[in-house]
Protein backbone atom coordinates (compact mmCIF):
# COMPACT_ATOMS: atom_id res chain seq x y z
CA UNK A 1 0.00 0.00 0.00
CA UNK A 2 2.87 2.27 0.83
CA UNK A 3 4.45 1.71 -2.57
CA UNK A 4 1.10 2.29 -4.24
CA UNK A 5 0.72 5.53 -2.36
CA UNK A 6 4.25 6.49 -3.24
CA UNK A 7 3.89 5.76 -6.90
CA UNK A 8 0.51 7.44 -7.22
CA UNK A 9 1.67 10.53 -5.42
CA UNK A 10 5.20 10.37 -6.60
CA UNK A 11 5.19 13.94 -7.75
CA UNK A 12 3.99 15.07 -4.35
CA UNK A 13 6.71 12.94 -2.79
CA UNK A 14 9.25 14.53 -5.08
CA UNK A 15 8.12 18.00 -4.17
CA UNK A 16 8.28 17.08 -0.48
CA UNK A 17 11.69 15.46 -0.82
CA UNK A 18 13.12 18.38 -2.76
CA UNK A 19 11.83 20.79 -0.13
CA UNK A 20 13.46 18.81 2.65
CA UNK A 21 16.82 18.61 0.85
CA UNK A 22 16.67 22.31 -0.03
CA UNK A 23 15.93 23.11 3.59
CA UNK A 24 18.89 21.01 4.72
CA UNK A 25 21.16 22.90 2.32
CA UNK A 26 19.80 26.21 3.55
CA UNK A 27 20.39 25.23 7.18
CA UNK A 28 23.95 24.23 6.28
CA UNK A 29 24.72 27.51 4.58
CA UNK A 30 22.89 30.01 6.80
CA UNK A 31 25.11 29.49 9.87
CA UNK A 32 28.18 30.14 7.69
CA UNK A 33 26.85 33.45 6.46
CA UNK A 34 25.54 34.21 9.95
CA UNK A 35 28.91 33.55 11.57
CA UNK A 36 30.75 35.82 9.18
CA UNK A 37 28.24 38.66 9.41
CA UNK A 38 27.99 38.37 13.20
CA UNK A 39 31.76 38.74 13.62
CA UNK A 40 31.91 41.57 11.10
CA UNK A 41 29.21 43.48 12.98
CA UNK A 42 30.40 42.75 16.51
CA UNK A 43 34.07 43.29 15.79
CA UNK A 44 33.74 46.28 13.50
CA UNK A 45 33.57 48.82 16.31
CA UNK A 46 36.85 47.61 17.82
CA UNK A 47 38.82 48.26 14.67
CA UNK A 48 40.86 51.42 14.79
CA UNK A 49 44.33 52.43 13.71
CA UNK A 50 45.55 52.02 17.31
CA UNK A 51 44.10 48.52 17.47
CA UNK A 52 45.85 47.44 14.28
CA UNK A 53 49.16 49.17 14.83
CA UNK A 54 49.59 49.22 18.60
CA UNK A 55 51.11 46.84 21.09
CA UNK A 56 48.95 45.16 23.73
CA UNK A 57 49.31 46.50 27.26
CA UNK A 58 47.62 46.23 30.68
CA UNK A 59 47.87 42.43 30.52
CA UNK A 60 46.54 42.48 26.94
CA UNK A 61 43.31 44.09 28.14
CA UNK A 62 44.08 47.27 26.24
CA UNK A 63 46.02 48.43 23.24
CA UNK A 64 46.42 46.78 19.87
CA UNK A 65 47.30 43.45 18.34
CA UNK A 66 50.14 44.40 16.00
CA UNK A 67 52.54 41.67 17.22
CA UNK A 68 49.90 39.02 16.56
CA UNK A 69 49.19 40.33 13.06
CA UNK A 70 52.88 40.53 12.16
CA UNK A 71 53.45 37.12 13.73
CA UNK A 72 50.76 35.49 11.61
CA UNK A 73 52.24 37.17 8.51
CA UNK A 74 55.67 35.79 9.38
CA UNK A 75 54.33 32.31 10.00
CA UNK A 76 52.36 32.31 6.75
CA UNK A 77 55.37 33.49 4.75
CA UNK A 78 57.65 31.04 6.56
CA UNK A 79 55.25 28.23 5.73
CA UNK A 80 55.18 29.33 2.08
CA UNK A 81 58.98 29.32 1.84
CA UNK A 82 59.13 25.61 2.64
CA UNK A 83 55.86 24.18 1.44
CA UNK A 84 55.39 25.95 -1.91
CA UNK A 85 58.55 24.76 -3.70
CA UNK A 86 58.41 21.32 -2.13
CA UNK A 87 54.68 20.91 -2.79
CA UNK A 88 54.85 22.04 -6.41
CA UNK A 89 57.91 19.86 -7.08
CA UNK A 90 56.12 16.86 -5.59
CA UNK A 91 53.08 17.63 -7.73
CA UNK A 92 55.28 17.84 -10.84
CA UNK A 93 56.75 14.48 -9.96
CA UNK A 94 53.35 12.84 -9.52
CA UNK A 95 51.84 14.36 -12.64
CA UNK A 96 54.79 14.34 -15.07
CA UNK A 97 57.29 11.70 -13.97
CA UNK A 98 55.77 9.06 -11.72
CA UNK A 99 54.74 5.79 -13.28
CA UNK A 100 51.77 3.86 -12.02
CA UNK A 101 53.57 1.48 -9.69
CA UNK A 102 53.73 0.46 -6.04
CA UNK A 103 55.95 3.35 -4.99
CA UNK A 104 53.66 5.94 -6.56
CA UNK A 105 50.70 4.35 -4.84
CA UNK A 106 52.58 4.51 -1.55
CA UNK A 107 53.30 8.22 -2.13
CA UNK A 108 49.62 8.88 -2.75
CA UNK A 109 48.67 6.96 0.36
CA UNK A 110 51.21 8.98 2.35
CA UNK A 111 49.74 12.25 1.05
CA UNK A 112 46.21 11.16 1.96
CA UNK A 113 47.45 10.25 5.43
CA UNK A 114 49.26 13.55 5.87
CA UNK A 115 45.99 15.28 5.06
CA UNK A 116 44.17 13.31 7.75
CA UNK A 117 46.58 13.62 10.67
CA UNK A 118 45.04 15.73 13.47
CA UNK A 119 46.55 19.20 13.71
CA UNK A 120 47.54 18.72 17.35
CA UNK A 121 49.55 15.64 16.36
CA UNK A 122 51.48 17.85 13.95
CA UNK A 123 52.15 20.02 16.98
CA UNK A 124 53.57 17.04 18.88
CA UNK A 125 55.68 16.06 15.90
CA UNK A 126 57.02 19.60 15.53
CA UNK A 127 57.85 19.66 19.22
CA UNK A 128 59.64 16.33 19.01
CA UNK A 129 61.59 16.95 15.78
CA UNK A 130 62.10 20.68 15.28
CA UNK A 131 61.94 22.14 18.78
CA UNK A 132 63.74 19.46 20.77
CA UNK A 133 65.66 17.13 18.47
CA UNK A 134 66.93 19.76 16.03
CA UNK A 135 67.03 22.31 18.86
CA UNK A 136 65.34 25.15 17.00
CA UNK A 137 63.51 25.99 20.24
CA UNK A 138 59.99 27.38 20.24
CA UNK A 139 60.52 29.58 17.24
CA UNK A 140 59.04 30.94 14.04
CA UNK A 141 61.28 28.47 12.21
CA UNK A 142 59.99 25.41 14.07
CA UNK A 143 56.36 26.54 13.77
CA UNK A 144 56.72 27.34 10.06
CA UNK A 145 58.29 23.96 9.33
CA UNK A 146 55.51 22.20 11.24
CA UNK A 147 52.84 24.17 9.39
CA UNK A 148 54.49 23.51 6.02
CA UNK A 149 54.32 19.76 6.41
CA UNK A 150 50.67 20.11 7.41
CA UNK A 151 50.02 22.28 4.33
CA UNK A 152 51.83 20.02 1.85
CA UNK A 153 48.97 17.64 1.02
CA UNK A 154 46.65 20.51 0.02
CA UNK A 155 49.30 22.10 -2.21
CA UNK A 156 50.40 18.81 -3.74
CA UNK A 157 46.94 17.53 -4.60
CA UNK A 158 45.55 20.78 -6.03
CA UNK A 159 48.75 21.46 -8.00
CA UNK A 160 48.79 17.95 -9.38
CA UNK A 161 45.23 18.30 -10.59
CA UNK A 162 46.08 21.63 -12.20
CA UNK A 163 49.07 20.07 -13.97
CA UNK A 164 47.08 17.07 -15.12
CA UNK A 165 44.39 19.30 -16.55
CA UNK A 166 46.87 20.65 -19.13
CA UNK A 167 46.12 18.72 -22.33
CA UNK A 168 48.57 16.02 -23.36
CA UNK A 169 49.00 17.66 -26.79
CA UNK A 170 50.87 20.58 -25.20
CA UNK A 171 53.53 18.13 -24.04
CA UNK A 172 53.67 16.24 -27.30
CA UNK A 173 54.09 19.38 -29.38
CA UNK A 174 56.75 20.83 -27.11
CA UNK A 175 58.79 17.62 -27.05
CA UNK A 176 58.46 17.22 -30.81
CA UNK A 177 59.86 20.72 -31.28
CA UNK A 178 63.01 19.54 -29.55
CA UNK A 179 62.43 20.79 -26.02
CA UNK A 180 63.63 18.60 -23.18
CA UNK A 181 61.24 17.29 -20.62
CA UNK A 182 62.17 19.90 -18.04
CA UNK A 183 61.98 22.71 -20.62
CA UNK A 184 58.50 21.53 -21.50
CA UNK A 185 57.45 21.49 -17.86
CA UNK A 186 59.01 24.77 -16.81
CA UNK A 187 58.06 26.84 -19.87
CA UNK A 188 54.80 25.33 -21.03
CA UNK A 189 53.06 23.14 -18.47
CA UNK A 190 53.76 25.21 -15.36
CA UNK A 191 52.68 28.38 -17.14
CA UNK A 192 49.38 26.86 -18.20
CA UNK A 193 48.72 25.33 -14.80
CA UNK A 194 49.73 28.44 -12.86
CA UNK A 195 46.25 29.69 -11.84
CA UNK A 196 45.27 26.25 -10.54
CA UNK A 197 48.53 25.91 -8.63
CA UNK A 198 48.16 29.40 -7.20
CA UNK A 199 44.65 28.57 -6.01
CA UNK A 200 45.93 25.49 -4.23
CA UNK A 201 48.84 27.33 -2.66
CA UNK A 202 46.61 30.08 -1.29
CA UNK A 203 44.06 27.61 0.08
CA UNK A 204 46.88 25.70 1.76
CA UNK A 205 48.39 28.83 3.29
CA UNK A 206 44.93 29.96 4.38
CA UNK A 207 44.70 26.83 6.45
CA UNK A 208 48.15 27.42 7.92
CA UNK A 209 47.30 31.01 8.83
CA UNK A 210 44.21 29.98 10.78
CA UNK A 211 45.65 27.00 12.65
CA UNK A 212 46.39 27.10 16.35
CA UNK A 213 47.12 23.56 17.52
CA UNK A 214 50.31 22.98 15.47
CA UNK A 215 51.94 26.17 16.77
CA UNK A 216 50.85 25.78 20.41
CA UNK A 217 54.11 24.12 21.45
CA UNK A 218 56.31 24.94 18.48
CA UNK A 219 56.39 28.72 18.21
CA UNK A 220 53.45 30.58 19.70
CA UNK A 221 54.11 33.07 22.46
CA UNK A 222 51.48 33.94 25.07
CA UNK A 223 52.58 37.55 25.18
CA UNK A 224 55.48 39.32 23.55
CA UNK A 225 55.84 43.05 24.09
CA UNK A 226 57.96 43.43 20.93
CA UNK A 227 58.21 42.07 17.43
CA UNK A 228 60.28 38.91 16.88
CA UNK A 229 63.88 39.66 15.94
CA UNK A 230 64.78 36.52 14.03
CA UNK A 231 63.44 33.19 12.84
CA UNK A 232 64.61 31.70 16.12
CA UNK A 233 62.27 33.90 18.16
CA UNK A 234 58.86 32.78 19.31
CA UNK A 235 56.00 34.97 18.09
CA UNK A 236 52.47 35.95 18.89
CA UNK A 237 49.93 34.82 16.30
CA UNK A 238 46.32 35.82 15.65
CA UNK A 239 44.64 32.43 16.18
CA UNK A 240 46.60 31.68 19.34
CA UNK A 241 46.04 35.21 20.60
CA UNK A 242 42.29 34.83 20.12
CA UNK A 243 42.43 31.57 22.04
CA UNK A 244 44.41 33.17 24.85
CA UNK A 245 42.25 36.24 25.28
CA UNK A 246 38.99 34.29 25.07
CA UNK A 247 39.93 31.56 27.57
CA UNK A 248 43.02 32.44 29.58
CA UNK A 249 42.69 36.10 30.48
CA UNK A 250 40.03 37.00 33.05
CA UNK A 251 38.03 40.20 32.61
CA UNK A 252 39.07 40.55 29.00
CA UNK A 253 37.12 43.35 27.27
CA UNK A 254 34.71 41.70 24.84
CA UNK A 255 35.43 44.36 22.22
CA UNK A 256 39.05 43.34 21.86
CA UNK A 257 38.05 39.69 21.57
CA UNK A 258 35.60 40.37 18.76
CA UNK A 259 38.06 42.72 17.11
CA UNK A 260 40.78 40.06 17.12
CA UNK A 261 38.36 37.47 15.73
CA UNK A 262 37.42 39.94 13.00
CA UNK A 263 41.02 40.60 11.97
CA UNK A 264 41.76 36.87 11.84
CA UNK A 265 38.61 36.23 9.84
CA UNK A 266 39.37 39.01 7.36
CA UNK A 267 42.93 37.72 6.98
CA UNK A 268 41.72 34.22 6.15
CA UNK A 269 38.69 35.23 4.08
CA UNK A 270 40.76 37.57 1.93
CA UNK A 271 42.99 34.65 0.98
CA UNK A 272 39.91 32.55 0.31
CA UNK A 273 38.34 35.17 -1.93
CA UNK A 274 41.60 35.75 -3.84
CA UNK A 275 41.84 31.99 -4.48
CA UNK A 276 38.24 31.86 -5.68
CA UNK A 277 38.72 34.85 -7.99
CA UNK A 278 41.91 33.45 -9.53
CA UNK A 279 40.12 30.18 -10.15
CA UNK A 280 37.08 31.64 -11.81
CA UNK A 281 39.07 34.11 -13.91
CA UNK A 282 41.33 31.33 -15.14
CA UNK A 283 38.26 29.28 -15.91
CA UNK A 284 36.80 32.08 -17.99
CA UNK A 285 40.01 32.74 -19.88
CA UNK A 286 40.99 29.16 -20.55
CA UNK A 287 41.25 28.31 -24.23
CA UNK A 288 41.65 24.55 -24.05
Amino acid at each position, binding site marked *: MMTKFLSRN*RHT*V*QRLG*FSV*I*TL*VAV*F*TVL*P*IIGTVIYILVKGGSAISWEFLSGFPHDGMRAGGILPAIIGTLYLTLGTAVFSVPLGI*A*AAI*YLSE*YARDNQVTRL*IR*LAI*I*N*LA*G*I*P*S*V*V*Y*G*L*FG*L*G*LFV*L*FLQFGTSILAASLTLS*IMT*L*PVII*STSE*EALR*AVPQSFRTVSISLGA*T*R*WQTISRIILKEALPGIL*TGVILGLERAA*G*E*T*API*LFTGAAFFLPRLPHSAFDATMAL*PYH*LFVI*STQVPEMPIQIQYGT*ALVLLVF*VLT*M*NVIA*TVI*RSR*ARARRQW
Partner: protein
Amino acid sequence: MEKSLSWREFIITRLIQASGYSAILFVALIFFFLLREGLPTLSEVDASSLLNFRWYPIESYFGILPLITGSLVVTLGAALIAVPFGIGTAVYISEIAPRWMREILKPLVELLGGLPSVVLGFLGILVLSPFLRVFLDLPTGLTAFTGSLLLGGIAVPTVVSVAEDALDSVPRAYREGAWALGATKWQTIWRVTLPAAKSGVLTAVMLGVGRAIGETMTVMMVTGNAPVLATSLGSLFSPVRTMTATIAAEMGEVANGSTHYHVLFFIGMVLFIISLVVNVIASSVVFRAKKRAERILS
Protein backbone atom coordinates in the same frame (compact mmCIF):
# COMPACT_ATOMS: atom_id res chain seq x y z
CA MET B 1 64.68 6.85 -20.41
CA GLU B 2 66.27 9.95 -21.91
CA LYS B 3 69.85 8.97 -22.58
CA SER B 4 71.00 12.46 -23.50
CA LEU B 5 69.97 14.23 -20.33
CA SER B 6 72.24 17.10 -19.63
CA TRP B 7 73.55 17.16 -16.08
CA ARG B 8 71.31 20.08 -15.22
CA GLU B 9 68.24 18.24 -16.36
CA PHE B 10 69.47 15.21 -14.44
CA ILE B 11 69.80 17.12 -11.18
CA ILE B 12 66.41 18.78 -11.55
CA THR B 13 64.80 15.44 -12.25
CA ARG B 14 66.37 13.95 -9.15
CA LEU B 15 65.28 16.90 -7.00
CA ILE B 16 61.72 16.59 -8.25
CA GLN B 17 61.77 12.88 -7.60
CA ALA B 18 63.07 13.44 -4.07
CA SER B 19 60.26 15.94 -3.44
CA GLY B 20 57.75 13.38 -4.63
CA TYR B 21 59.14 10.80 -2.22
CA SER B 22 59.21 13.30 0.64
CA ALA B 23 55.59 12.64 1.56
CA ILE B 24 56.52 9.07 2.53
CA LEU B 25 59.46 10.39 4.51
CA PHE B 26 57.26 12.82 6.45
CA VAL B 27 54.69 10.22 7.43
CA ALA B 28 57.53 7.95 8.57
CA LEU B 29 59.17 10.79 10.51
CA ILE B 30 55.92 11.71 12.25
CA PHE B 31 55.32 8.12 13.25
CA PHE B 32 58.92 7.70 14.39
CA PHE B 33 58.87 10.76 16.64
CA LEU B 34 55.51 9.83 18.15
CA LEU B 35 56.87 6.36 18.91
CA ARG B 36 60.15 7.73 20.25
CA GLU B 37 58.44 10.03 22.73
CA GLY B 38 55.30 7.95 23.32
CA LEU B 39 56.51 4.41 23.78
CA PRO B 40 58.38 5.02 27.09
CA THR B 41 54.85 5.30 28.51
CA LEU B 42 54.51 1.54 28.39
CA SER B 43 57.46 1.03 30.70
CA GLU B 44 56.56 3.89 33.04
CA VAL B 45 52.84 3.30 33.44
CA ASP B 46 51.51 -0.23 33.58
CA ALA B 47 48.76 -1.17 31.19
CA SER B 48 46.08 -1.61 33.83
CA SER B 49 46.36 1.92 35.15
CA LEU B 50 46.63 3.29 31.59
CA LEU B 51 43.34 1.64 30.74
CA ASN B 52 41.74 3.09 33.83
CA PHE B 53 38.98 5.64 34.17
CA ARG B 54 40.84 8.20 36.20
CA TRP B 55 42.80 10.96 34.47
CA TYR B 56 44.49 13.04 37.13
CA PRO B 57 48.11 13.53 36.02
CA ILE B 58 49.17 15.64 39.02
CA GLU B 59 48.78 12.57 41.22
CA SER B 60 50.03 10.24 38.51
CA TYR B 61 46.68 8.84 37.49
CA PHE B 62 47.01 8.32 33.75
CA GLY B 63 43.80 6.47 32.86
CA ILE B 64 43.05 7.42 29.26
CA LEU B 65 39.60 5.81 29.07
CA PRO B 66 37.68 9.00 29.92
CA LEU B 67 39.56 10.82 27.17
CA ILE B 68 38.78 8.11 24.62
CA THR B 69 35.10 8.01 25.55
CA GLY B 70 35.07 11.81 25.53
CA SER B 71 36.37 11.84 21.98
CA LEU B 72 33.89 9.12 21.01
CA VAL B 73 30.85 10.94 22.42
CA VAL B 74 31.72 14.26 20.81
CA THR B 75 32.58 12.63 17.48
CA LEU B 76 29.43 10.54 17.46
CA GLY B 77 27.35 13.63 18.07
CA ALA B 78 29.23 15.47 15.33
CA ALA B 79 28.63 12.62 12.89
CA LEU B 80 24.89 12.65 13.64
CA ILE B 81 24.90 16.27 12.46
CA ALA B 82 27.49 16.21 9.70
CA VAL B 83 26.18 13.10 7.90
CA PRO B 84 22.59 14.19 7.17
CA PHE B 85 23.49 17.84 6.55
CA GLY B 86 26.61 17.00 4.56
CA ILE B 87 24.99 14.39 2.33
CA GLY B 88 21.80 16.44 2.00
CA THR B 89 23.76 19.48 0.87
CA ALA B 90 25.83 17.35 -1.52
CA VAL B 91 22.64 15.93 -3.06
CA TYR B 92 21.19 19.41 -3.34
CA ILE B 93 24.30 20.84 -4.99
CA SER B 94 24.87 17.96 -7.35
CA GLU B 95 21.31 16.94 -8.27
CA ILE B 96 18.77 19.63 -7.50
CA ALA B 97 20.27 23.10 -7.43
CA PRO B 98 20.16 25.23 -10.57
CA ARG B 99 23.56 26.13 -11.96
CA TRP B 100 23.75 29.64 -10.50
CA MET B 101 22.88 28.31 -7.05
CA ARG B 102 25.64 25.74 -7.34
CA GLU B 103 28.13 28.50 -8.13
CA ILE B 104 27.18 30.25 -4.90
CA LEU B 105 26.91 27.22 -2.62
CA LYS B 106 30.21 25.54 -3.45
CA PRO B 107 32.43 28.50 -2.48
CA LEU B 108 30.31 29.04 0.63
CA VAL B 109 30.79 25.50 1.84
CA GLU B 110 34.48 25.82 1.04
CA LEU B 111 34.49 28.99 3.10
CA LEU B 112 33.18 27.04 6.07
CA GLY B 113 36.11 24.65 5.61
CA GLY B 114 38.44 27.62 5.80
CA LEU B 115 37.03 29.23 8.95
CA PRO B 116 39.69 28.90 11.66
CA SER B 117 38.55 26.45 14.31
CA VAL B 118 39.54 28.91 17.01
CA VAL B 119 36.99 31.42 15.68
CA LEU B 120 34.26 28.78 15.88
CA GLY B 121 35.37 27.92 19.41
CA PHE B 122 35.29 31.60 20.31
CA LEU B 123 31.72 31.97 19.08
CA GLY B 124 30.92 28.70 20.82
CA ILE B 125 31.96 30.17 24.15
CA LEU B 126 30.28 33.54 23.69
CA VAL B 127 27.13 32.70 21.75
CA LEU B 128 26.31 29.03 21.41
CA SER B 129 26.99 27.76 24.93
CA PRO B 130 25.08 30.49 26.81
CA PHE B 131 22.20 29.88 24.42
CA LEU B 132 22.25 26.12 24.96
CA ARG B 133 22.52 26.52 28.73
CA VAL B 134 19.30 28.52 28.83
CA PHE B 135 17.55 26.66 26.04
CA LEU B 136 18.22 23.15 27.37
CA ASP B 137 18.23 24.25 31.03
CA LEU B 138 21.67 22.81 31.79
CA PRO B 139 24.00 23.72 34.66
CA THR B 140 26.66 24.67 32.10
CA GLY B 141 26.64 25.32 28.38
CA LEU B 142 30.13 23.89 27.93
CA THR B 143 29.16 20.29 27.14
CA ALA B 144 29.95 17.52 24.70
CA PHE B 145 26.80 18.53 22.80
CA THR B 146 28.08 22.06 22.21
CA GLY B 147 31.29 20.53 20.88
CA SER B 148 29.33 18.15 18.68
CA LEU B 149 27.31 20.96 17.11
CA LEU B 150 30.40 22.93 16.18
CA LEU B 151 32.40 19.86 15.14
CA GLY B 152 29.49 18.82 12.95
CA GLY B 153 29.83 22.15 11.20
CA ILE B 154 33.57 21.65 10.82
CA ALA B 155 33.11 18.17 9.32
CA VAL B 156 30.36 19.25 6.90
CA PRO B 157 32.64 20.72 4.18
CA THR B 158 34.66 17.50 4.02
CA VAL B 159 31.52 15.38 3.73
CA VAL B 160 29.96 17.71 1.14
CA SER B 161 32.97 17.90 -1.16
CA VAL B 162 33.77 14.19 -1.17
CA ALA B 163 30.11 13.10 -1.41
CA GLU B 164 29.50 15.61 -4.18
CA ASP B 165 32.48 14.29 -6.12
CA ALA B 166 31.04 10.80 -5.73
CA LEU B 167 27.57 11.84 -6.95
CA ASP B 168 29.13 13.77 -9.82
CA SER B 169 31.06 10.74 -10.97
CA VAL B 170 27.89 8.64 -11.42
CA PRO B 171 27.52 8.42 -15.23
CA ARG B 172 24.76 10.54 -16.63
CA ALA B 173 23.42 7.52 -18.49
CA TYR B 174 22.29 5.98 -15.18
CA ARG B 175 20.05 8.93 -14.50
CA GLU B 176 18.80 9.15 -18.06
CA GLY B 177 17.97 5.44 -17.99
CA ALA B 178 15.90 5.88 -14.85
CA TRP B 179 14.07 8.92 -16.24
CA ALA B 180 13.36 7.06 -19.47
CA LEU B 181 11.72 4.31 -17.43
CA GLY B 182 9.39 6.90 -15.94
CA ALA B 183 11.06 7.48 -12.58
CA THR B 184 10.79 10.95 -11.13
CA LYS B 185 13.96 12.88 -10.40
CA TRP B 186 13.47 12.13 -6.69
CA GLN B 187 13.12 8.40 -7.27
CA THR B 188 16.21 8.52 -9.45
CA ILE B 189 18.21 10.22 -6.71
CA TRP B 190 17.08 7.79 -4.01
CA ARG B 191 17.14 4.54 -5.93
CA VAL B 192 19.76 5.02 -8.63
CA THR B 193 22.22 7.83 -8.07
CA LEU B 194 22.79 7.50 -4.32
CA PRO B 195 23.14 3.68 -4.41
CA ALA B 196 25.56 4.02 -7.35
CA ALA B 197 27.64 6.53 -5.41
CA LYS B 198 27.39 4.48 -2.21
CA SER B 199 31.08 3.76 -1.71
CA GLY B 200 32.05 7.36 -2.37
CA VAL B 201 29.43 8.63 0.05
CA LEU B 202 30.72 6.17 2.63
CA THR B 203 34.23 7.52 2.09
CA ALA B 204 32.86 11.01 2.63
CA VAL B 205 31.35 9.98 5.96
CA MET B 206 34.56 8.32 7.09
CA LEU B 207 36.73 11.30 6.19
CA GLY B 208 34.26 13.62 7.91
CA VAL B 209 34.40 11.51 11.06
CA GLY B 210 38.19 11.45 10.83
CA ARG B 211 38.18 15.23 10.61
CA ALA B 212 35.96 15.45 13.69
CA ILE B 213 38.09 13.13 15.86
CA GLY B 214 41.20 15.17 15.11
CA GLU B 215 39.75 18.62 15.70
CA THR B 216 41.39 20.30 18.65
CA MET B 217 40.83 23.97 19.39
CA THR B 218 37.05 24.06 19.10
CA VAL B 219 36.50 21.09 21.39
CA MET B 220 39.05 22.33 23.86
CA MET B 221 37.24 25.64 24.12
CA VAL B 222 33.63 24.48 24.35
CA THR B 223 33.43 21.00 25.89
CA GLY B 224 34.24 22.03 29.44
CA ASN B 225 37.32 19.80 29.70
CA ALA B 226 36.15 17.52 32.51
CA PRO B 227 37.88 14.13 32.26
CA VAL B 228 34.81 12.13 33.27
CA LEU B 229 34.09 8.66 31.90
CA ALA B 230 31.22 8.85 29.46
CA THR B 231 28.96 5.91 30.14
CA SER B 232 25.68 6.77 28.49
CA LEU B 233 24.16 9.08 25.95
CA GLY B 234 23.37 11.42 28.83
CA SER B 235 27.05 12.31 28.89
CA LEU B 236 26.35 14.23 25.71
CA PHE B 237 24.93 16.99 27.87
CA SER B 238 27.70 17.14 30.44
CA PRO B 239 31.27 18.40 30.15
CA VAL B 240 33.78 15.98 28.67
CA ARG B 241 37.40 16.11 27.63
CA THR B 242 38.73 14.70 24.39
CA MET B 243 42.12 13.22 23.53
CA THR B 244 43.08 16.15 21.31
CA ALA B 245 42.05 18.76 23.87
CA THR B 246 44.05 16.99 26.59
CA ILE B 247 47.24 17.12 24.54
CA ALA B 248 46.70 20.76 23.59
CA ALA B 249 45.81 21.87 27.11
CA GLU B 250 48.51 20.02 29.03
CA MET B 251 51.55 19.75 26.78
CA GLY B 252 52.52 23.36 27.46
CA GLU B 253 52.82 22.71 31.17
CA VAL B 254 54.67 19.41 31.43
CA ALA B 255 58.40 18.90 31.83
CA ASN B 256 60.06 17.40 28.77
CA GLY B 257 60.77 13.73 29.33
CA SER B 258 58.42 13.32 32.28
CA THR B 259 55.90 10.51 32.45
CA HIS B 260 53.07 12.95 31.81
CA TYR B 261 54.92 14.15 28.69
CA HIS B 262 55.31 10.59 27.43
CA VAL B 263 51.66 9.78 28.05
CA LEU B 264 50.58 12.82 26.05
CA PHE B 265 52.73 11.61 23.13
CA PHE B 266 51.21 8.18 23.61
CA ILE B 267 47.75 9.70 23.17
CA GLY B 268 49.05 11.44 20.04
CA MET B 269 50.21 8.06 18.80
CA VAL B 270 46.75 6.62 19.33
CA LEU B 271 45.25 9.55 17.37
CA PHE B 272 47.79 9.06 14.58
CA ILE B 273 46.93 5.38 14.30
CA ILE B 274 43.19 6.12 14.28
CA SER B 275 43.62 8.62 11.44
CA LEU B 276 45.90 6.19 9.58
CA VAL B 277 43.31 3.42 9.78
CA VAL B 278 40.45 5.73 8.75
CA ASN B 279 42.37 7.08 5.76
CA VAL B 280 43.75 3.75 4.57
CA ILE B 281 40.28 2.22 4.64
CA ALA B 282 38.70 5.27 3.04
CA SER B 283 41.22 5.35 0.22
CA SER B 284 41.08 1.63 -0.40
CA VAL B 285 37.35 1.80 -1.06
CA VAL B 286 37.11 1.36 -4.78
CA PHE B 287 35.94 4.77 -5.74
CA ARG B 288 37.40 6.67 -8.59
CA ALA B 289 36.55 10.21 -7.66
CA LYS B 290 36.18 12.47 -10.58
CA LYS B 291 39.26 14.60 -10.48
CA ARG B 292 38.75 17.55 -8.28
CA ALA B 293 40.53 19.54 -10.97
CA GLU B 294 37.16 19.84 -12.59
CA ARG B 295 35.87 21.70 -9.61
CA ILE B 296 38.89 23.90 -9.44
CA LEU B 297 39.64 24.60 -13.05
CA SER B 298 36.54 24.22 -15.12
